């Protein structure tokens, strides 16, 4: 098990390094002169002279080569310093620290909702294969996975906030405010999760030990949730992990529509203002969340399936 964990951790570090390098490289290739952007922020309306820009570039470290800039930036990043926003002048780490918990709350709520919806639906659809319930679940899953988030958001607002006024239209600060954005995100990931759950459970239901359990008279609920689901859990856990990571990084549109002050709105504003330090910080944090969640998923794998632990980290 220790070897398994160590191997996975090593991959985590390697992926983070690669992501940070690619993000930094892309930022350095982006059009526009960072010195001009910062000059306009600090001295708006003035025309930057070549001398002023040269001095600013030196202050910003832009006179060094890109690899040296990267090393300097990375060295700061591992100490928690992601630089300064070009448009607001605030520390990127401060903005991220302020907003990450809000996005995390939204993503976690969406994930819980998604699991609550999709696991029972997927198990039921598999158990009642080709029945009306199965068809409804599959159509629902397809719609959830296919419909764009903004459309789902507006429909939920229209019916649950405007027509029946169950929830507020926008805002932050209460559970009521959390409901609609979480539900919007949940419906999207629930579609995929339902389909995976159904497929995985179907696979297991055909196994001889399940048939044997049926023949021995094991109650249906116990058969499904204690035996079948547990053995079908591995691919489902994978998708849950991917969903969470995706929710953390992909809530842009939902946060914008619901005015949820999370990382998504920060990223949208940064993109609109070409604020590359913030964009880089956002990408790095999202990538870190992704690999950490996947690392956690791998650990859950090992917990669920002893064969993985005993094999020392090799996949089945």
């Amino acid at each position, binding site marked *: 098990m220790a070897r398994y964990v160590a191997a996975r951790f090593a991959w985590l570090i390697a992926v983070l390094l690669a992501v940070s390098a690619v993000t930094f490289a892309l930022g350095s290739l982006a059009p526009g002169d960072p010195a001009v952007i910062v000059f306009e*922020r600090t001295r708006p309306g003035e025309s930057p002279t070549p001398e002023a820009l040269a001095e600013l570039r030196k202050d910003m470290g832009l006179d060094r080569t890109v690899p040296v800039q990267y090393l300097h930036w990375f060295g700061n990043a591992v100490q928690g310093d992601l630089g300064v926003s070009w448009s607001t002048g605030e520390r990127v780490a401060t903005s991220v620290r302020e907003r990450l918990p809000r996005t995390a709350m939204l993503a976690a709520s969406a994930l819980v909702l998604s699991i609550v919806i999709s696991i029972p639906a997927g198990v039921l659809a598999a158990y009642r294969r080709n029945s009306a319930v199965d068809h409804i679940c599959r159509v629902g899953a397809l719609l959830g996975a296919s419909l764009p988030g903004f459309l789902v958001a507006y429909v939920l607002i229209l019916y649950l906030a405007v027509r029946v006024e169950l929830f507020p239209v926008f805002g932050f600060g209460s559970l009521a405010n959390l409901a609609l954005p979480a539900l919007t995100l949940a419906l999207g990931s629930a579609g995929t999760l339902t389909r995976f759950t159904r497929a995985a459970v179907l696979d297991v239901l055909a196994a001889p030990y399940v048939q044997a359990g049926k023949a021995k008279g094991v109650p249906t609920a116990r058969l499904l949730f204690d035996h079948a689901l547990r053995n079908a859990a591995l691919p489902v856990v994978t998708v849950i992990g991917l969903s969470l990571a995706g929710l953390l990084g992909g809530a842009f549109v939902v946060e914008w529509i619901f*005015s949820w002050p999370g990382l998504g709105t920060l990223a949208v504003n940064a993109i609109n203002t070409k604020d590359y330090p913030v964009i880089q910080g956002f990408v790095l944090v999202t990538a870190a969340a992704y690999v950490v969640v996947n690392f956690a998923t791998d650990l859950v794998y090992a917990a669920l399936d002893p064969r993985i632990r005993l094999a020392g980290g090799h996949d089945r």
Partner: protein
Amino acid sequence: MRARRLLLVATLVLATAGCTDGDDNGAPAPQTTETKALDDAQKAHLDRFGGYADERELVAAGLLPQESAVYEVSVSLDRKSYKIGPEPRPADQQTLTVGFQADPWTAAAGKRTFARFPLDAGVNETLTRLGEDYSVQPGLATRWEVIAAGTNPDYPGRPTWRFFLRPGVKFHSGGDFTAADVKWSLDRARAQNLDTSLTMSSSGPSSVVVVDPLTVDITPRILTGSPPSTNLRLPESFVHQFYGIYRDGTRPELYGTDPAGTVDGTGPFRFDTYTANDSITVTRNDAYWGPRARLGRINFKLVSDDTTRRLALDTGSIDVVFDVGRQQVAALRASSDVQVVTAPPTYTFVMYINVNGQPPYDKLKSENVRRALALSINRDEFLRGNWDAGMATVVNHVGPPSALGSSYSTVSSYTFNLNEARNLLDDEGWTCGNGAARARTACRGGEIRQKAGQPLQLYMLANRATDDVPLLEDLQRRALEAGIGITIGDDGANRFTPRKDSGAWDLDTAQPNQNDANPAFLLMRQWWSNATQNFVACWAVDTTDGQADGQPCPYPDSNLQSPNLPFRAGPWQAAGPTFDGHVKQALEANTLERAREASAAAMDYLIDRATVIPLAGVSRVYGLRKHVAGFEPVNPALSFVRWTNVYLSK
């Protein structure tokens, strides 16, 4: 059994989905108002207060019966009548929630105008105010005049504007408003490069001198005209909230980050709280020098998405929404609890033309080709096809028509004439088919005219993330009727400005906004030759000897030279010396009327030469819950909303 359960659930869902707002939720019925004519005595009394009197002064003077005071809304724009509005709610329920766009004050540049612009929260005031008819009214200054020589030692003997300040005005913190506060605020506007008045720049001595606690001299660094007059458009510029006045020593842009970041003004509302990306709240200033507001509190909610704002209006969690998009007006009008209010034509949807382009962007150097393009667009049909009734109108100005006053009637108009457009193109050698026969007929469907093997294909700059692309596609179709092809570009935020600056375009569209009383404001910025170099041009006077010699200013002025400035003209639109002459006359005019005449002449010249095509005067649209009374967008400028008259009715 299961089927019955499913049917019941489906029925419940459909029944819920079928619920609508309206009478079911106890929303108030639409309010009616009674209009009454003002008599001569009432009109005369209102005139004494300039643009800021309302019926409460009339009641205080005994010219209106007391019992109608509670219900009245503001007097009409033409000062001929007043309305008796609906009964108000109790005072403790007078809290208004306004939905505005995404927080404009998060970026450092935006913070310079915190709580003032683009959202005027009613906290800070200006020396002069914009009247309903784009005239200049007294604000914190009661009057102003040009004096021969001011008191500024750095500009000895120069003509100067002297402003006489309103006595008895207090800041929200309790301190007296004096000339020192004016100097502090205007000098800071200069230091922050907010100055658009042809007056000051970030370098050189200050133009502002305190004469006494209620008198301030402002000596323009930049003069217009020869012999030197003074900057006669300066009082008109001061209506803009860039020149909002705040207490000496405070720096509102530092709010939340520095002890000096105090938001202290003289306005009808006092600053209460601000949460970034969420809201700003103000409360009534009971010690206000002017008409006391009826609302006790205003919450401005900063909501990024305009559809979300509109839906929040439907639920009542927002009472007022600014700038409803054209696609949403119909849905708002269909709601029984919402009223749609429009301002007079606000901003003009304009097609800019590159009249000085280099090949291959030189096709529109020909006046006939430009004229053909203009004549090929049926503006009435264009409006009817893209805006709801009353939302847009045909205009012949690049700014609000009211900015030109009565002179607007002297400006020419384009008249749709497809045949003449085709004839003009034929005359220029742009023909259909293989060019051998000049048939003077329409090209076959979709065919683009050619000349010497080159198609008449124009490139239109477009940022598809922000531009209203369906409007551009409509224009594209109309131009094709005359055989003119338009390629709509896909120039994102990074490419748009560099491409525009380089001249690699034929057409561009925009919707410029004017929050300034200077009638030549937009004309100067887009077509004036001097705007190609510096917006504030030092072309008129050599400050050493007072003679016009075209030498550079001693203080190089680079104001508003930022490449990201959306309105920077560049040389591609410059309209030439005749136009420049009209603008010069407008800037030098001694009266607003004369300035308007000259500006109208400049606009007429642009249309006569087809240098620009004004397509639609679009009204600013507001969505209001039916219980919001007294809201009158009497001036089309964004930042001029009279919150003092607004209240919530029963």
